[in-house]
């Protein structure tokens, strides 16, 4: 039961600036997913919250208390590591009990908490085993259990699912979400997987090169991406980007490919001829006459759906996802780009431009 607040947290390793000032307010019980490409600073941010790394500047507050200078043990947090970090020579029980033992808790109380957590995670039968005698999924549960018994203010997860196979990952993902909801513990979850991010988070922090590119709910990030990076990172296949220029009056854009696109939600500020980037998701493009002709390069059948890669007039590439079977797709496909499906970005900065 706690809030977390980050106040322009910066981190520098020698000459390289890894975090450029992260601000974040996490509400009590909220699950925040930090998502971004590998190397963007997600783990560093999490480790600063954990106290395993010290911020170069900025503050971390848990429940309003400034913990920036505190040791990890004094922050009342629990962390689940990517490789689980279970002590190999201790049994499952000892692993889960270790932190409680060090805090001087009574053996009976330790027993009660471990049993309770083990039951919740369905690892009650494994308590006497050593980590090496467990499967990946079981280790994952034990690592969760070790966090749960602590009854901490904050759960921190650093890519805890990436060592599991695809099926188990989906299953554990749902379980982590259920567990977090049930316990209501404020959580920070780091991942590079956009599906994990979309399904787990109450809100996402999309990180890009040490900055929070966008902090918003999954649907908001998907529906109104703050810049072209976020737009391309969230969603699969990735959003298409087409070069365009602003038409006089700001009510429409002229695609390089020669088509005019009207802004259905209102005109944008900006002088005529200003460079724009127009984004449209592959699944929003439709089949039909009167739009563009797509010269098909590659057809990827997904069963009931088909992903088609191709080029349009002017040489720009376009990916289309159509709810039709792959059979019978010819060399040239007439497609329509619905106006209301477009996202408008500044052509030079990549920032989203909202209606004026």
């Amino acid at each position, binding site marked *: 039961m706690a809030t977390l607040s980050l106040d322009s947290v910066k981190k520098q390793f020698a000459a390289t600036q890894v975090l450029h000032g992260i601000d974040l307010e996490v509400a009590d019980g909220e699950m925040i997913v930090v998502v971004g490409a590998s190397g963007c600073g997600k783990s560093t941010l999490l480790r600063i919250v954990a106290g395993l790394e010290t911020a170069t500047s900025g503050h971390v507050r848990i429940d309003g208390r400034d913990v920036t200078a505190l*040791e990890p043990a004094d922050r009342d947090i629990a962390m689940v590591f990517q490789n689980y970090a279970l*002590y190999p020579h201790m049994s499952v029980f000892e692993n889960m009990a270790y932190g409680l033992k*060090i805090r001087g808790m009574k053996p009976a109380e330790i027993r009660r908490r471990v049993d309770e957590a083990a039951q919740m995670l369905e690892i009650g039968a494994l308590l006497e085993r050593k980590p090496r005698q467990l499967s990946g999924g079981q280790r994952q549960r034990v690592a969760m259990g070790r966090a749960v018994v602590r009854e901490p203010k904050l759960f921190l997860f650093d890519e805890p699912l990436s060592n599991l196979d695809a099926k188990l990952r989906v299953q554990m993902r749902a379980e982590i979400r259920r567990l977090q909801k049930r316990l209501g513990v404020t959580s920070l979850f780091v991942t590079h997987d956009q599906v994990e991010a979309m399904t787990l988070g109450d809100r996402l922090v999309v990180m890009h090169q040490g900055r929070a590119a966008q902090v918003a709910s999954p649907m908001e990030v998907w529906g109104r991406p703050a810049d072209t990076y976020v737009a391309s990172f969230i969603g699969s296949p990735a959003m298409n980007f087409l070069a365009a220029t602003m038409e006089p009056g700001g009510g429409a854009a002229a695609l390089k490919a020669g088509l005019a696109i009207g802004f259905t939600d209102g005109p944008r500020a900006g002088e005529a001829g200003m460079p724009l980037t127009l984004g449209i998701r592959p699944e929003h493009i439709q089949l039909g006459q009167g739009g563009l002709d797509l010269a098909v390069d590659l057809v990827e059948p997904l069963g009931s759906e088909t992903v088609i890669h191709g080029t349009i007039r002017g040489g720009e590439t376009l990916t289309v996802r159509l709810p039709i079977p792959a059979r019978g797709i010819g060399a040239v496909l007439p497609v329509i780009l619905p106006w209301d499906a477009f996202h408008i970005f500044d052509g030079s900065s990549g920032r989203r431009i909202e209606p004026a």
Partner: protein
Amino acid sequence: MSATMDLEADRLARATIRRNARNRWIAYVTLSLGVLIFAFPIWLTLVGSSHDASTIGRGDVPLWFGPHAISNYVSAWLTGGEATRTTRSVPAWVMLWNSLNMAVLIAVGKIAISLLSAFAVVFFSFPGRMIAFWLIFITLMLPVEVRIIPTFEVMVNLGLINTMTGLVVPLIASATATLLFRQFFLTIPDEYVEAAKIDGAGPLRFFKDVVLPLSVTNIAALFVILFIYGWNQYLWPLLIVSDRDLETVVVGMTKMIGNGDAQNEWNIIMATAVLAMLPPVAVVVFMQRWFVKGLTETEK
């Protein structure tokens, strides 16, 4: 068509089996020869310790056991043979006891010190950490033999001549063991350290609860090596100990071989040599179980 192919496959398979059998024979013969070459001197010692002094004194080299084993071992153990005009004899049990003390203290001391220094070098960042590491590393180039004169002088000044302390302490500092533990500690994932930090374990707690249990098999392996290293020490004990009650068996045995004044009691010397071999063998045999356990149960 298919029948001839089957025949051909069969023929090839049998040829492979024959070739494997022949290769195995060559391996066995080579190994047996090796064992013979290594074991022969030990055999001679064992056999020699069961004859009386005059048999060996005549220059005979018996290849089979004689009738005097029990009396030889009893007199080696209890008296160390007859005293000569110049030297008194020391019973083997005294020398073995001294050797055992020295070897155990050296092995335990070396392991304790190197565990702690490797722990400091690997898990802490403090100013001068690399300097400390390189200083330890450089002492690799200064084995006991090289620093023996200054070390001897220090021991004299400290009044540690003819003491177990003087015998053991200069042999304890060990760059090799420190390096080995350092290499091992470097393979311990950072996440264990971090998990322990979050669990609230301080450095010593982490050392005791995580590092030490993970190092058990390394410690066992090193104990064997260091025990034998200590047991076989010759030069330093020869220098620092003149009191024969503190004499180690390796040094004591060479003193049993006289300078020609009197007949050497080869039977007693051989018996002592056999006794001197037993503790290292026992350590190897006993600790081997730990090795194998450590090798088969890779934890991590």
